[in-house]
């Protein structure tokens, strides 16, 4: 009972920027070292320290922030709203859901309890109605759109031209073969937010097959793409074949393989791959941001 999605050219975004700024470093995520992750979490526990790095990125010409829907992102949105002149071109690419929030809630309240906990604050009557009906009639569409709206509440009044579904959810649904969930997300993001849906996955070749099945045309897909083949499920050759032969808008993440590949070598390799529209990277210092920008300008 898979719904086919009609191509929606009306909502196509323009080409994405070459460099997107990621947020792992701000929230204690580091795939190489738990100690490094903790130090970063300590360093960035105040909004000011995050804003200083975002400002540095803006000054280097990188003003698209690809971020989770972590609670603290709301503070950054508020800061951007409060300073419209400073952030005239600043753009968010929200990635939802912030999986740990849900995982912890499921542990405490069970599956349905967790869903109930995240009803959106806005339009409570509407939400409760939609939520209640969804639970009663097993209407998955209601639940998915409800959760997207809850996640998007923090981004009111800022620009969000691309809205991502996080890899934990994409890959869970991918493994389950739950095609309709993608169709529902896709449609809701386009119609309600006028945004382009994006999908983060650790299983690119398999995800592209599924997107083909449900008729997503030229989808935006973000996945690990690095010279080491680190966390590229299906193998680096299959990823390279996909970049060569499949039609999708590729965003490369983990291009440094969590620091295992030196920056110059990493970026030279990734820029030589076909069809890569954007690279998402995280950095904690102006020097590292500038270095990445310079190398990308040199190779891409």
């Amino acid at each position: 009972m898979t719904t086919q999605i009609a191509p929606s050219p009306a909502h196509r975004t323009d080409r994405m920027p070459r460099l997107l700024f990621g947020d792992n470093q701000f929230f204690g995520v580091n795939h190489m070292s738990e100690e490094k992750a903790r130090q970063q979490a300590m360093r960035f526990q105040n909004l000011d320290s995050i804003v200083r790095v975002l400002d540095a990125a803006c000054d280097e010409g990188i003003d698209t922030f690809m971020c989770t829907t972590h609670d603290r992102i709301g503070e950054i949105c508020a800061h951007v709203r409060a300073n419209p002149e400073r952030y005239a071109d600043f753009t968010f690419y929200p990635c939802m859901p912030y999986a740990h929030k849900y995982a912890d809630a499921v542990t405490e309240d069970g599956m349905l309890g967790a869903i109930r906990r995240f009803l959106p604050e806005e339009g409570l009557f509407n939400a409760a109605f939609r939520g209640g009906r969804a639970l009663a009639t097993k209407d998955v569409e209601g639940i998915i759109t409800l959760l997207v709206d809850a996640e998007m509440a923090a981004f009111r009044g800022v620009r969000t031209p691309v809205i991502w579904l996080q890899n934990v959810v994409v890959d869970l649904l991918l493994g389950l073969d739950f095609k309709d969930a993608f169709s529902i997300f896709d449609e809701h993001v386009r119609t309600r937010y006028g945004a382009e849906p994006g999908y983060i996955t650790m299983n690119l070749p398999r995800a592209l097959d599924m997107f083909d099945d449900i008729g997503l045309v030229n989808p935006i897909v973000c996945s690990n793409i690095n010279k080491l083949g680190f966390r590229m499920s299906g193998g680096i050759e299959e990823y390279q074949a996909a970049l060569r032969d499949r039609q999708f808008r590729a965003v490369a993440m983990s291009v440094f393989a969590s620091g295992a590949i030196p920056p110059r070598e990493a970026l030279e390799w990734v820029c030589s791959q076909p069809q890569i529209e954007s690279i998402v990277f995280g950095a904690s210092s102006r020097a590292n941001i500038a270095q990445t920008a310079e190398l990308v300008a040199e190779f891409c």
Partner: protein
Amino acid sequence: MKIGVVGLGKMGLSHLSMINAHPDVEVAGIVDSAGYLLDVLGKYTGMQRFSDYETMLDTVELDAVLIATPTRMHEPMVRAALERDLHVFCEKPLCLTSAESIALGELADERGLVTQVGYHNKFVGAFQEVRNLLDAKAIGQVTHVLAEAYGPVVLRAKGSTWRSRKSEGGGCLYDYAAHPIDLLTWYLGAPVGVGGSQLRRVFSDHTEDEVLATMYFEEGVSSQISVNWSDESCRKMTTKVTIWGTAGRIQADRQECQVYLRDTVEPPPGYQHGWNTKYTTELTDPTWFYLRGEEYSAQLDYFVQRVRAGKVEGVNTFQSAAVTDRALELISQDAAVGTSLRELRPAQPTPATTTDRMKRRIFRKQP
């Protein structure tokens, strides 16, 4: 290979997704007692669903079952599967008593069935590297181990799932501490005793949130256990082992393995005297599918390959899980006895040593 999946909670749903994506596996049935999720999956994925486990076993032709229900339900479900000659992958811990686990292991052995328990840390590259280093005697004779796990599971006085009920197998000991303790039994074998165990509540009403204990192993090796699932400072579960030996020290978590090697022994290939660090990027083998971590896919693939090859021996069999269950049981029993206050009693009238005199002075000063 046809498999049935039982229990669609957090772990069960992840397992279902990964095993369903496995090229050699067909999910022939899914079972859960809660109708909602089952209906959604049935409706949207076409998987054949059952609200009753026995009905699935009687209805569908299966090679194996994957059980991810609350721990209390493992024993009868595993037994029912083994009695039908099905191979079994069961979530950890295996049973609430080691006697049950041992009996299940014996039954599986009699029938030549493949068994595996979901202690996924044994499929983490850094923890495997620790095992390789210990096998190579890289740090000489092990003397002491510190096994830790911290995470933000129970952060307030609330909670209504089976994890908050001791009788179901919930609680920090069985649900959380089982992981580092299983690593210890993998590295050091079965414990010969435990002492100083404390199961402490922080927020929970009916279960412990902290596990502190000492475990004793053969050849005078000891280990401290420090586990707390009410630690908000960790973004997610963090498991760590630190091992001291006569020739060095190893410290490992999911991401990296740091090793100090003294010049009293020859370093293994790829290592040098002094500090060495191996990262997850070089220690991790790629998997066919990724969800939450390579180790989860890797353990399921390992199970599938063992079933295909009819390989009864392996990592995380019921026999090894029974050793861990025994360790958990010993800690429960030791904690129930209560804290030993022997050291605080006034000394007997024997010739006093300096230390004893000092202890008495300290004791008198206290109100």
